């Protein structure tokens, strides 16, 4: 093994150990009496120190050494574990981390000076000590191990018959007996160990099958302990191939860790494998599955029962192999959670808060790549909870809560997804404050806010920009960077939800898919090619028969749209976007795949919808990287390749969404109308004859109601509409009201134009809060640049512009709605 490889191994292993140290130290701080934890910490520092010395990392060795000295006194119960000690030790952990990252980046230890830290640790060791014995015992544990281990191993070797080989499988070894257990008990442990002994007459073969020597470093240490009794009890089975590896094991400081460290050890059964190798295995297994499928198909034509049986077995084995290989990529979520106790501790100290942190479900498994991806969002959520959620002790006491806040992180599987919940019993989120803040930051308009449900208001904290406001206001809720949490989660196909009760606490719940490697996809075809659409962005499928297709697809000034439950859905033709065959035959059925990109739905028209399939998305090579509409490619069940569509990229190319993400909940009328962009407008004539306009994006539907359907509710006119009561506002009349005229009796002037049988109504707004605008006549839908030609000269109008050569007023619907509601209030009192 080259030096570099050893260094890499060392870095990997030490990083893992540091993660453990963080959580162990915090654990120990809570329970200073826990001897096993202390021992664990000691061992970790010890092995880091040993390896650092071995690698010639002097600084690292020095800091680790001082920490170890301190720990040895703690272990001897000469001093007590106190928070200052915990802090100092955690700082040592940080220093080690810093040195390691320097080593990783530059190969050197860096320029950091850690003598002060070491001195501080040394000082802590001296103070609080009853008597100051110099700590010389340090090297004994490892020495003991080797001295104890070696002779017995040697004895075993001598007793061994050279033609026989003993294998001890690492993963099969039962947990070792208590480390302090008397030797004699070792023999009673024999039975399980003996069961694990395999005999091979051929030493050479055995030697071949011995993996890399390194694996034996870990293996060798437990082995000698057992080999003596094994050899004694089973004189037949003997010689250890392990013997070859023994010198290596002795040379590696790691060996000192093995026999004792295994107290709570599950790590024993694990080996490190390069992720690239796993990916390759996945690929090969995928191909094997394809080959199996082909064999299955062909075997149908044979009657040979032997062949069919073999094929059946192949089938089962392949399926199982595939499942197992997929499992290799899974890691317990604990790997990422381990560092959180430390973060919570540091943060709560810094904020002057008391927080009890519990974690559940650390064994929940998740794909390795996802584990990395959720690290930052989770950290953010935890920070938010401590920083903003949990109140300072005084406040908590005043509110009748225990001083110590509770923060809980819960991970579990549900419905093929991993759910991670972070909940606190803090102040909760004041939705009203969230609303005010969002309005102040111009993220939403007051009108939009007024129409929002509580849940919708809560979701405002996820809006980009919501977090960037300064924290001087310090309202006690979440919000700092929650949009980052959301975008990060969405990037990996996850979702975030938030629940909060004012004064009782907040729960943020994230849902993450189990794996990134395999995603469910909808397979469609267009222009004779197959494409895969990730199901994460899929909303629904709409099928139109030829007749419906004829009527269903409407053209809005050249842009195809479809009315999906009243809302206009922009349509994008896939073959057109991909410049496949342009000619679409008339009079065929139409398949619309309703997709969502950046919260904006659009319909993708494809030739046919095939099937859903689980696919492994692979990136495209650099020759094709520049094509934004493809996210990658995947190999289908039949061995052919299909391209995977990038829905966001496709939407962007088709201009469904703008390049920059500027479509928030901001409503059109309030956003600066000065922009030169064209927007679709609905033009209508008022009864007075003037031309007015509203943005089409806010129009849910155009309706005509028979006059007889109109009913009165208080002072307002309403109509029954799709099972709801739709408030009607007469635009012309509303404007008069606003101007302060004609306020006398709305009833009298409400329906002046009695001549027509039906009245045209523009259904305006989103699902929850719709209003119907009574207009004189619908004129047209146009797509025009909107420029403010003149300011509004009366209330109820936003501004005036020239559209299609006519002076046009833009209606301030929000003002009309307010007016109508005001009008209703006095009458109810």
């Amino acid at each position, binding site marked *: 093994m080259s030096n570099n490889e050893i260094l890499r191994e060392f870095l990997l292993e030490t990083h893992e150990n540091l993660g453990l140290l963080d959580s162990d130290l915090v654990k120990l701080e809570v329970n200073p009496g826990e001897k096993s934890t202390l021992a664990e910490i000691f061992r970790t520092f010890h092995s880091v120190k040993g390896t650092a010395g071995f690698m010639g990392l002097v600084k690292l060795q020095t800091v680790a050494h001082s920490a170890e000295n301190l720990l040895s006194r703690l272990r001897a119960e000469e001093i007590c574990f106190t928070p200052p000690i915990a802090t100092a030790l955690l700082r040592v952990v940080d220093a080690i981390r810093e040195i390691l990252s320097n080593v990783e980046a530059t190969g050197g230890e860096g320029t950091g000076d850690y003598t002060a830290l070491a001195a501080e640790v040394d000082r802590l060791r001296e103070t609080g000590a009853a008597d100051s014995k110099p700590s010389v015992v340090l090297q004994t544990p490892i020495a003991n191990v080797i001295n104890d281990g070696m002779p017995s191993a040697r004895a075993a070797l001598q007793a061994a018959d050279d033609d026989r080989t003993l294998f001890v499988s690492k993963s099969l070894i039962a947990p070792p007996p208590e480390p302090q257990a008397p030797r004699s008990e070792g023999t009673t442990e024999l039975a399980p160990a003996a069961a694990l002994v395999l005999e091979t007459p051929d030493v050479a073969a055995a030697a071949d099958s011995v993996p890399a020597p390194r694996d034996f470093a870990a293996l060798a240490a437990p082995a000698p302990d057992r080999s003596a009794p094994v050899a004694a009890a089973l004189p037949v089975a003997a010689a250890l191939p392990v013997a070859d590896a023994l010198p290596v094991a002795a040379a590696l400081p790691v060996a000192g860790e093995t026999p004792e460290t295994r107290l709570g050890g599950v790590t024993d059964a694990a080996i490190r494998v390069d992720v690239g190798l796993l990916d390759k295995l996945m*690929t*090969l297994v*995928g*191909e094997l599955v*394809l080959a199996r499928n082909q064999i299955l198909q062909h075997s149908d034509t044979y009657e040979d029962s032997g062949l069919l049986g073999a094929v059946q077995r192949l089938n089962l084995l392949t399926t199982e192999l595939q499942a197992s290989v997929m499992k290799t990529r899974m890691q317990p979520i604990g790997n990422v959670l381990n560092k959180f106790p430390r973060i919570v501790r540091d943060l709560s100290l810094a904020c002057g808060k008391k927080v009890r942190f519990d974690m559940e479900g650390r064994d929940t498994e998740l794909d390795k790549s996802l584990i990395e991806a959720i690290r930052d969002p989770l950290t953010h959520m935890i920070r938010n909870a401590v920083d903003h959620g949990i109140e300072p002790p005084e406040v908590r006491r005043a509110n009748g809560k225990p001083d110590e806040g509770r923060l809980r992180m819960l991970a579990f599987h549900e419905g093929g997804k991993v759910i991670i919940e972070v909940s606190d019993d803090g102040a909760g989120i004041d939705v009203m404050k969230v609303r005010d803040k969002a309005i102040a930051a111009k993220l939403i308009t007051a009108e939009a806010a007024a129409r929002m449900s509580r849940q919708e208001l809560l979701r405002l904290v996820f809006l980009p920009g919501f977090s960037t406001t300064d924290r001087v206001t310090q309202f006690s809720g979440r919000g700092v960077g929650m949009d980052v949490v959301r975008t990060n989660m969405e990037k990996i196909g996850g979702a975030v939800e938030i629940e909060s009760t004012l004064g009782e606490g907040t729960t943020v719940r994230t849902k993450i898919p189990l794996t990134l490697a395999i995603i469910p996809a909808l397979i469609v075809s267009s*222009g004779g*090619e*197959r494409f895969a659409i990730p199901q994460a962005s899929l909303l629904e499928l709409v099928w139109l028969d030829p007749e419906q297709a004829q009527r269903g697809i409407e053209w809005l000034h050249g842009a195809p749209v479809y009315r999906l439950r009243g809302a206009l859905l922009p349509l994008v033709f896939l073959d057109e976007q*991909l*410049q*496949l065959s342009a000619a679409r035959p008339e009079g065929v059925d139409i398949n619309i795949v309703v997709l969502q990109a950046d919260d904006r739905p659009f319909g993708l028209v494809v030739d046919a919808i095939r099937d859903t399939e689980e696919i492994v998305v*692979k990136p*495209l*090579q*650099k*020759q*094709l*990287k*520049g*094509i934004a*509409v*493809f996210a990658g*490619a995947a*190999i289908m069940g039949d*061995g*052919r*390749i*299909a*391209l995977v569509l990038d829905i966001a990229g496709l939407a962007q190319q088709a201009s469904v969404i703008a390049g920059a993400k500027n479509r928030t909940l901001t409503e059109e009328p309030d956003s600066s109308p000065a922009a030169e962009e064209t927007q679709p407008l609905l033009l209508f004539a008022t009864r007075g004859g003037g031309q007015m306009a509203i943005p089409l994006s806010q129009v849910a539907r155009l309706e005509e109601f028979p006059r007889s359907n109109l009913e009165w509710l208080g002072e307002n006119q309403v109509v029954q509409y799709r099972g709801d009561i739709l408030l009607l506002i007469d635009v012309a009349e509303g404007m008069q009201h606003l101007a302060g005229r004609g306020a006398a009796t709305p009833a009298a002037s409400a329906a002046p134009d009695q001549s027509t049988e039906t009245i045209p109504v523009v259904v305006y707004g989103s699902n929850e809060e719709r209003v119907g605008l009574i207009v004189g006549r619908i004129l047209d839908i146009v797509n025009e640049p909107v420029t403010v030609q003149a300011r509004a000269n009366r209330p109820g109008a936003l501004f005036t512009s020239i559209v299609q050569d006519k002076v046009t007023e833009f209606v301030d619907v929000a003002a009309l709605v307010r007016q109508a509601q005001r009008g209703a209030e006095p009458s109810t009192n």
Partner: protein
Amino acid sequence: MATPQQFCTFYLGEQCYGLDVLQVQEIVRSQPPTRVPLAPPMVLGLINLRGQIVTAIDLRRRLGLPERSEGGESVNVVVQTDDGAVSLLVDEIGDVLGVTHQQFERPPETLRGVARELIRGAYKLPDRLLVILDLEKIVSVTETANSPA
């Protein structure tokens, strides 16, 4: 320069081309690629090489040669690049030839067009010229002549 360098040779029409044999991973029979819409014209599509998705480049189009005649034979030369394996579609595969440095000559000034920057030079074999291609430039489609015009 005593040790001869080995080249994997192949043909486009009558012309013989060579790539360093160490850059060539394998030769596979041609299989219908999956078309990639919007891709540069020289990208024929994607092929499945034992579970690996490999971009197939039509070397004729890349070098600005006339299209292969309908139904003409073709072979995939799979080469190793920084970005993984890439397949080059050629007409016919030749032998692996050992040549010495003395036989090499840089391309003449009269060689023009896209091919100029893709050709490193030629080895003068007794009976023909062996044209040596610059693999890195051949596969970096994005930088040169990318747009379908």
